[in-house]
């Protein structure tokens, strides 16, 4: 097991550099000048832009820039063009909030989605299943950003029971979770509803697959209770593909976080990314891409490790 993890981590390294280099290349080949957004126009006229460009290393060949920035990052010296602060610090400041509501959304999506999938899969093509499946398809088709606005309209503007944006009441400081809670309800709800249809659909089809297997028939013919058969023999095996979906969902969630954070005014990673892209803040964009790549690679690894827990037949060598 330990060897397996070590080997997987080693395999991640080239993928990590591949992803980050390609994304850096794309960003650098795109038109746009970061200097134009760094200073107001009147300042820009006064300073020597060539010197500044040289200082920022923008005149080097792109691969050299990439290597330099990576080296700076690992020394903790990579500075955002825009904020003049280490990119790592900027991300670390905004990470907790993004992580908090994305993880909450995953938990809720599983807690709500698994029972629904179970109900559907036990009697496929029944009336109830049809209704649930159309519901899931509808959920899949709702634009999250629109849903967020509708929720704000209903709960903040009309009913006035939930705050529309921000993370804590004006003037309140600190990280009191209870003060933040009302601010997180709608963002979490939107993200959960975005995940829910996928969780339901995948679990349902995976369960239907499992329930038609021979060992389920064997379990039934042994005279086991239907509940035991479905939960212990069915659900447990059906969860394996579902776990892989959670791994695959992670990149999607980061995208969802961008939209949700901009709508609800949450100071998270997503908004940081939008601003960095608009301002051509290359160090920031590179760091964010690295961060995203690491998150995805790690979640893929964790997914594979969870497999072995769920299905002892899977051996990771």
């Amino acid at each position, binding site marked *: 097991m330990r060897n397996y993890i070590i080997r997987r981590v080693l395999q991640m390294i080239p993928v990590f550099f591949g992803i980050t280099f390609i994304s850096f290349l794309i*960003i650098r080949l795109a038109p746009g000048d970061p200097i134009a957004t760094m200073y107001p126009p009147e300042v820009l006229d006064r300073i020597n832009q060539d010197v500044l460009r040289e200082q920022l290393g923008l005149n080097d060949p792109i691969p050299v820039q990439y290597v330099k920035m990576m080296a700076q990052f690992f020394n903790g010296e990579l500075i955002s063009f825009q904020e003049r602060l280490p990119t790592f610090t900027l991300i670390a400041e905004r990470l907790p909030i993004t992580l908090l509501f994305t993880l909450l959304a995953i938990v809720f999506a599983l807690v709500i989605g698994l029972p629904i999938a179970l109900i559907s899969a036990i009697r496929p093509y029944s009336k109830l299943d*049809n209704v649930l499946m159309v519901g899931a398809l509808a959920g899949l088709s*709702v*634009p999250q950003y629109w849903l967020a606005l509708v929720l704000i309209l209903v709960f903040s*503007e009309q009913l006035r029971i939930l705050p529309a944006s921000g993370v804590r009441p004006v003037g309140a400081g600190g990280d009191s979770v209870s003060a933040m809670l009302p601010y997180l309800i709608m963002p979490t709800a939107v993200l959960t509803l975005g995940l829910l249809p996928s969780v339901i659909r995948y679990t349902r089809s995976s369960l239907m697959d499992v329930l038609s297997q021979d060992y389920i028939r064997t379990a039934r013919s042994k005279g086991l209770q239907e509940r035991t058969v479905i939960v212990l023999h069915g659900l447990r095996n059906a969860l394996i593909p579902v776990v892989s979906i959670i791994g695959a969902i992670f990149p999607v969630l980061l*995208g969802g976080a961008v939209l949700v954070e*901009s709508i609800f005014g949450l100071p998270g990673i997503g908004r940081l990314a*939008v601003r960095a892209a608009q301002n051509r803040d290359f160090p920031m964009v590179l760091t964010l891409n690295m961060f995203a790549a690491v998150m995805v690679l790690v979640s893929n690894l964790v997914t594979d490790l969870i497999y072995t827990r769920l299905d002892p037949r899977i051996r990771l060598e």
Partner: protein
Amino acid sequence: MTRVQTADTSQLVAALRDANRTRGTRSRRFAARILKNPRAVVGMILLLLFCFMAVAAPFIAPYEPEAQRIADRLKPPSADHWMGTDALGRDIFSRALYAAQISIPIGIFAMVVALVVGVCIGLLSGYYGGWIDNILMRLTDMLLSFPIFFLLLTITALFGRTIPVLILMLGLTSWGVNARVVRAQVLSLKEKEFVEAARSLGASPGRIIMRHIFPNIVPILIVDATLRVALVILIEGGLSFLGVGVQPPTPSWGNMISDGGALLRRAWWVSVFPGIFLFLCTISFNLVGDGLRDALDPQLQR
């Protein structure tokens, strides 16, 4: 000796011809099964409606989509403006109709780009295997493990936001699943007898791929294509919503929803109606795609 060989060959040719002939009846049975699925039928009707809207927008829209009338700004829905007007006095209903002309083609063309790339990669990877497979699949893994929306946001924010660029970007970032599905299909198909038969008749790899393998993955491609259009339309909406997709004043459902974001309290209709259009359009593609999938699944033949 030669005679035996020719006999064998003619049997093989006959087998291949049979394989081709059953294809016709299969597609007829398939159509019948689709039409029995109420969800798919509703989806198809909705889809036709949207296509009609897109084509006929100039004839059915009561106003010009970009005509501003400041005197009429932020008017609530009324007989004059069915869905009200936005902050510049433009008619929401007319703009939403014209947006179908933008968003649906973006979805379809981006899907075509994704499909072409995905099919090529999947076919090559599955058929040839070896190092080609290895390289192409690692590339696919990379794409799939990347937060696409994140990437798209960066790219479209940087590379201008014209519609062709948008189509290309959306297409080139969403072929991953497709490539994997095609590869898996090819892997199982290339072991089938009819492919073996074609190969023993001396067909070239190109001919085997195009004549014998490709036609058999078309049904799956159609399902994937339909569902992909829905996804791409939603993503385009998201990008436009963030201001890095379709650029105003060209209407797209995404940028119309975004227009109303700041006006929620004063004018809810500015966001709400375009969102309903976007939702219905997406769900129509999803319903059709899902219906096609059910109709194709041999296990579901009831």
